[in-house]
């Protein structure tokens, strides 16, 4: 009995700590949806690409993956802007929502192919000297990496929050999310916001990727696992809602960790799907989504 309670608590702790990273990844994804109404299926691939970047910086130059985050953030931001300009902006048709979905899927495959050419398909992991150390309080294990990852994700999310709520660009983004047409009438350059917003969404993948590389072994195909998890989170939170994505990430990650520790890891990946289906049955717009427009 105490054993299962212990496992439950350990699962919750693990889930919350991991949830921070997922919150970061999902916030980028939901931001992109909010601004452009594009479900970015390449978000997982962008995270893995960022993980490879920090892995290479670590193995080739000995730079700590946590310290290179500013650099990878800039790179991922630039890449995001380029993807938007080259692949998404030209889609100017009435069914651009459907097309953009498939285009981002193709971008994900393109990135996957690129990564498997550059880094091969063997599993990599960023093994820092603190990778395996942990603290234990009251019999509950706290891995250093996970705690660091959690704190770091909170910091990144805080910065994102400040950017969206305290800057002129952030105001333009929020206006576009709420009502693109009115925003444009009031002088927001929606094309510029779309490009920079996609860049911003991709930039959140940088910090998330560095942390992902510390937590899990990954290869170029890992983005498939990520994308289904991220999408479930984003739907649960309500497409376009950053706050919703954060809360949904914690819920999904915790329940999946609890299922893994209490029952079996086999079914933990199924948790995402069950949650997704339940959300669609009970509240299709998600926890914090609105039926008509996006909300931040």
């Amino acid at each position, binding site marked *: 009995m105490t054993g299962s309670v212990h496992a439950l608590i350990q699962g919750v702790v693990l889930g919350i700590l991991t949830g921070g990273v997922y919150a970061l990844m999902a916030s980028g994804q939901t931001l992109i949806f909010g601004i452009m109404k594009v479900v970015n299926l390449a978000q997982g691939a962008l995270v893995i690409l960022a993980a490879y970047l920090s892995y290479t910086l670590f193995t080739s130059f000995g730079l700590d993956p946590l310290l290179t985050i500013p650099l990878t953030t800039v790179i991922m931001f630039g890449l995001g802007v380029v993807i938007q300009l080259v692949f998404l902006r030209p889609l100017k048709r009435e069914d651009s929502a459907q097309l953009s979905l498939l285009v981002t899927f193709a971008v994900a*495959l*393109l990135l996957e*192919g690129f990564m498997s050419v550059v880094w091969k398909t063997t599993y990599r992991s960023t093994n820092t000297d603190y990778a395996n150390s942990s603290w234990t309080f009251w019999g509950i294990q706290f891995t250093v990496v996970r705690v660091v990852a959690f704190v770091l994700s909170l910091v990144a999310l805080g910065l994102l929050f400040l950017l969206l709520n305290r800057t002129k660009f952030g105001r333009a983004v929020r206006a576009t999310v709420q009502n693109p047409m009115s925003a444009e009438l009031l002088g927001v350059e929606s094309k510029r916001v779309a490009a920079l917003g996609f860049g911003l969404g991709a930039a959140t993948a940088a910090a998330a990727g560095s942390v992902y590389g510390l937590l899990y072994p990954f290869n170029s195909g890992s983005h498939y696992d990520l994308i289904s998890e991220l*999408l*479930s989170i984003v739907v649960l939170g309500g497409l376009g809602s950053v706050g919703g994505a954060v809360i949904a990430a914690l819920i999904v990650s915790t329940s999946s960790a609890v299922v893994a520790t209490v029952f079996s890891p086999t079914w933990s990946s199924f948790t*995402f799907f069950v949650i997704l289906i339940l959300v*669609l049955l009970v509240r299709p717009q998600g926890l914090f989504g609105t039926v008509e427009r996006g909300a931040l």
Partner: protein
Amino acid sequence: MSIRSLVRGGVFVAALMALPLLGFEHWVLNLMIFTLMYAAMSSAWNLVGGFAGYPSLGHAAFFGLGAYFVGLWFQHHAVVTGYEPFLVLPIAGLIAAVVGFPIAWIAMRTRADVFAIVTITLLFVAQTLAFNLDSLTGGAQGLAMPTPPFELARFEWPFYYAMLWILLASMGITYLSMRSKVGLSLDAIRADEDKALGVGVHVQGVKVLSFSISVALVAMAGGVWAYYETFTYPQFAFDPIITIGMVLMCFLGGRGTLWGPVIGAFILVPGQQYLAYRLGGSQFYLIAYAGVFLLIMLLMPRGILPTIADRVRRRRAIAASSEGPPPADASPPTAGPGSNVPVPSGGAA
């Protein structure tokens, strides 16, 4: 017009029926099996993705379901004549339809993008389950099928004809639905679902029905594939490339048309084999494939057939206005589908 399409269909069926009799080498028949398989699946995808406008990214989940159903069935049943796996295909299709029905019913209550999210998640969940439930599926070790006891000279024939039958079923259903109220309903749903509901279309029923039929056909193709390959692995049965192949071929040929997905498959599958042969490693192949996809989406998002149809219509309009004889203009554009295919070399971005 209907005489013409009858002739076109008749020639197509006759040519494909006769092809194995012409004594081609094994690799040609092997290539044709995969071409027919993708043509069938792309046609089936077209019912949901092309006609109803709901882009399913999870059809490979049902392909894998069919493959694993046939694989698991023959863990417990013996193969004597070699034709038993083809006989259980309808059961595989039925199971896929039964599994797909509630999923579609839930996922199709929302917009197309959430539908795409649910279906792609389904694909990866299915793959993970196939990996993890190793007591049932054999996990990463894969599932072995009995070796088909066909004589070597005609080894490919049963698989070829099985795939052909699935393709013809798929095209037949497409044709019938285009000629019936179902097709009209699907058109209305794609154009404006709320208005369709308003004028009394059974929106939900038609959508879910087309999804169930579509995934049933795909599962049957998966069953044939599993038997042909004799080994089923999670990463190949639930491969996102299979989904993307169906979608890509449908987009290339033309969504919402009868012949579009077939043309797409007949161009892309041989092209794909050529790429794999020339580029060797699968990684470059993935880049090239994604590159072709992006080019098609950006340059010709409507596909070959609608683009040609537009051009023909425009020429006819010009010809009619400049008092030229209209029938003379009907023939030249039919020669040109190949020239519209984007060159795959521009793959890397």
